[in-house]
């Protein structure tokens, strides 16, 4: 039973100039259980992490990240992006069970 993926938080500027490099910041609530720990009975607590993060801009993959078990709970991911045109970002977090959580954000040209 995979832990629920929490509500994602995304922060990008509402608008940017063409050619401007913006920073896209994301934070999502997740336990990131490593698979190394044991419960009080001594049984291994199964691994349950967000294993992949993808960012698409107008359907095209612009950033992706494979996460590993050493990454902290509630992973914070930030990356730069060069804005060329207005469009829509789609962010996807995928856990070990293959469940997805999505967020979308629009950006306009200044």
């Amino acid at each position, binding site marked *: 039973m995979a832990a629920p993926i*929490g*509500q994602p*938080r995304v*922060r990008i500027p509402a608008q940017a100039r063409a050619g401007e490099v913006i920073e896209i*910041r994301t*934070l999502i*609530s997740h*336990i*990131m259980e490593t698979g190394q720990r044991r419960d009080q009975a001594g049984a291994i607590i199964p691994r349950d992490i967000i294993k992949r993060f993808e960012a698409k801009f107008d359907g095209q993959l612009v950033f992706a990240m494979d996460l590993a078990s050493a990454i*902290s*709970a*509630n992973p*914070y991911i930030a990356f730069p992006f060069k804005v060329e045109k207005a469009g829509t970002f789609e962010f996807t977090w995928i856990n070990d069970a293959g469940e997805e959580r999505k967020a979308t954000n629009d950006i306009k040209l200044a």
Partner: protein
Amino acid sequence: MWKAAGVTLGTAALAAGIAFAQGSAPEPQRTITDPQSGRHFATPETLAIQDDDFQNPAMLWAEEGELAWNRAEGTEGKSCASCHNDATQTMRGVRARMPGYHPRLQRVVTLEQQINICRTEHMGAPALPIDSRPLNAMTTFVALQSRGMPVNVDISGPARSAFDAGERFYNTRRGQLDMRCGSCHEDNFGRSLRADLLSQGMTNGFPTYRLKEQRVISLQFRLQGCVNDVRGEPPPMAGEDFTNLEFYLAWRAQGLPVESPSVRR
């Protein structure tokens, strides 16, 4: 000379006797007169996470608390907002003056306990387990409304006996290591304990996101950790011992700005 000294001592004893007879306990004196927040002892990397409201993971708890604030629960069909309306107005300053004396219950209650009193008495909802995620989310959300306000708890009047009990707990040596709270947080703050820097144990940042636990923790969870660390047997969370201690600790931090939710190692 001898006689003069004797008279002076006698007068002092008499004055103390009168104060005692009137039941007005002398004003307590703080060992640390100019307290420093835990952020003073934290690394710049940790503070960078705390000071950025987007990156601070405790804000995830605050958001959960805000959702729960407006969600009706229990048999009365009420939410927190049904009575308290807009938390940004009504909860401003609450964290700064808690724990506080509850006249009807005739004891000191913490913010967590007050939330559960509201739930059981006014909402008809079950009390949330102490230090659970939903309760920590609510306290984080409420505490956030007091951010920057100076801690200001009232230890006068009937609250004084709880304060004195908290002070006694603080100054009692316990555990196999035979240490009192002040052994670390008054006698040795600013010095290294293995890889970490000992703080003054000021509580103005709680609830806090603890990187070790990877979650928001309540103060009394941390207190259990402290007692375990001196190899003692901690009293239960939300019990009388820790509630009195939390009250005393708030007074130690009197005047420091509420920093909740802080981030600590």
